[in-house]
């Protein structure tokens, strides 16, 4: 029964994505098992975080610009989007999205469209009553994507508003107008000014991924994230002093990684400035959303 630590790692390292040993340990929990399985759950936290941030970056830019638009038909929807996603708890957004995604195929017409677009998945899922869109990998990713877009859009919108007036006047004096002025002056300056705030947003989006399996989206055949496994161990051993600090350790490592990557981008965005005028990244707790 007793396995060496290396055997445990081989058996459980990819447990959360369905590779390797399927049966979870039931008794005699070792530190190695906890480290391995919680680490395996981190794969999902990475998946949600990386994809939501990647797609969210583009939507955030679009929404920030729309919020800055003069035309109310463009501006108002963007303002409402940001208001709804920043003004309500992510937790409720998850629940709401889950219920909405369950009901979605039941509306007339939508099912036919879904079958046409995604034939295989829907045909499989209609029998069990819940489609692929109610699975965490798609549904929760959608919510996180929209949520981070709203938070980041607010950051970029603030940055857009604080572009120095002189920069824009100088651009005009050089004959840069319209699209050219935007792509060469406004957009890079917006990114540069907003980047420290956006770095914090990225860190806290990763933290927010821990909410996924506590908020409606079920973990199918126990393929959960880091906190899901930590909770499993805490429930089984009645000892919170081991699994939660392990999750904390993994997240501190992740935070350091994010800070390094975003710091490199920040350096590039600021490379033309003298060293005393550069934007510095400061870690600010921003927490629950």
């Amino acid at each position: 029964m007793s396995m060496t630590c290396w055997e445990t790692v081989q058996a459980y390292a990819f447990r959360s994505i369905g590779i390797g040993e399927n049966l979870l340990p039931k008794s005699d929990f070792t530190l190695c098992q906890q480290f391995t399985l919680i680490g395996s759950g981190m794969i999902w936290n990475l998946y949600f975080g990386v994809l939501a941030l990647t797609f969210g970056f583009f939507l955030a830019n679009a929404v920030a610009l729309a919020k800055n638009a003069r035309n109310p038909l463009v501006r108002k929807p963007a303002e409402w989007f940001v208001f709804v996603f920043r003004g309500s708890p992510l937790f409720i957004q998850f629940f709401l999205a889950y219920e909405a995604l369950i009901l979605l195929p039941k509306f007339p017409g939508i099912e036919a469209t879904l079958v046409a677009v995604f034939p295989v998945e829907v045909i499989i899922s209609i029998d069990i009553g819940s489609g692929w869109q109610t699975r965490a990998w798609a549904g929760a990713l959608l919510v996180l994507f929209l949520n981070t877009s709203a938070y980041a859009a607010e950051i970029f919108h603030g940055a857009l508003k604080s572009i120095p007036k002189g920069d824009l006047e100088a651009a005009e004096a050089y004959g840069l107008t319209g699209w050219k002025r935007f792509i060469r002056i406004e957009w890079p300056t917006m990114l540069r000014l907003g980047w420290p705030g956006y770095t914090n947003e990225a860190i806290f989006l990763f933290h927010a991924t821990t909410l996924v399996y506590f908020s409606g989206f079920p973990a199918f055949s126990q393929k959960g994230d880091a906190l899901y496994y930590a909770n499993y161990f805490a429930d089984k051993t009645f000892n919170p002093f081991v699994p939660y600090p392990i999750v904390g350790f993994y997240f501190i490592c992740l935070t350091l990684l994010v800070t390094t990557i975003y710091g490199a981008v920040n350096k590039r965005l600021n490379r033309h400035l003298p060293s005393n005028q550069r934007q510095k990244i400061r870690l600010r707790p921003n927490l629950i959303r």
Partner: protein
Amino acid sequence: MFAACADPKSIEGLTWGFCYLTSGKHVDFYWSFVVVLALLAITAPAALGMGFMGATAARSHIAPISWLGKIYIWMVRGIPDIIFFLFFVIALDQGLEYLKSLAVCDGGAWPWQGLEFRVCQEAKVPLGASSSGWHQAYGFGLAVVTFAIVFGAFVANVIYGAMQAVPHAQLETAEAYGMSRAQVFRRILVPQMWVYALPGLGNLWMILIKATPLLFLLGVKDIVYYARELGGSKTQAYEYPHGDWRLWYFLGLLVFYLVFTSLSERVFARLSRRLSKGQATSGGEAMRKAAA
């Protein structure tokens, strides 16, 4: 509850809707909003107190106290807060049970055996035989303490920054006038720091509002719990049969939070204007110029 609602199966239309929304379970649901507001009303001052103490400790000239304050402030960075919530609730619960076991259990064995936690039945908090009301109250109490500890750390961070932001020259002037350290702290530093702390505290208040659904994770019967209970589809065996209405209940919660946060935003904007009066900040300067 009402005479007209005695037989729900025979009524329909508006009356049905009225009776449905005033059923006993729905009244519990409305009370759970009060629970959320109560949590906010207790937690906000508690967290403010914890934060104030943390920030004061971090500024202390006695090294161990200052380290303690700084560790408390830095604790919340880098680690997702939800982990603190899950951790503190179990840790506090076990700590209490361990202390009680020292008093009531004989032998007093170390409860963390290997990777498990065992205390004798008499040391359980609350006792296994206690009513569910006690269990609920205990769960709520643990939640309040946990919220106060975690949010206290966030508040400490904001207040520490605000204390640093008070112009140093003012503190030196006060000392030159012969005020003691305690007097400078009480008369100059604390009254002035609020205007610097307000944006951060307002932000934290929003975060605190948005953190209240976590009560559900801590096992308290809060609005999320009732929304799930009441919204789930009800068969004919129930008094008020209906389909899966959870979507509409959660939509209601979403609207509740949106109204709450936007109202708070307005209150903070007004408060900020009032506090800026006569302050050496750009906001205060703008008000002075507008009046002149």
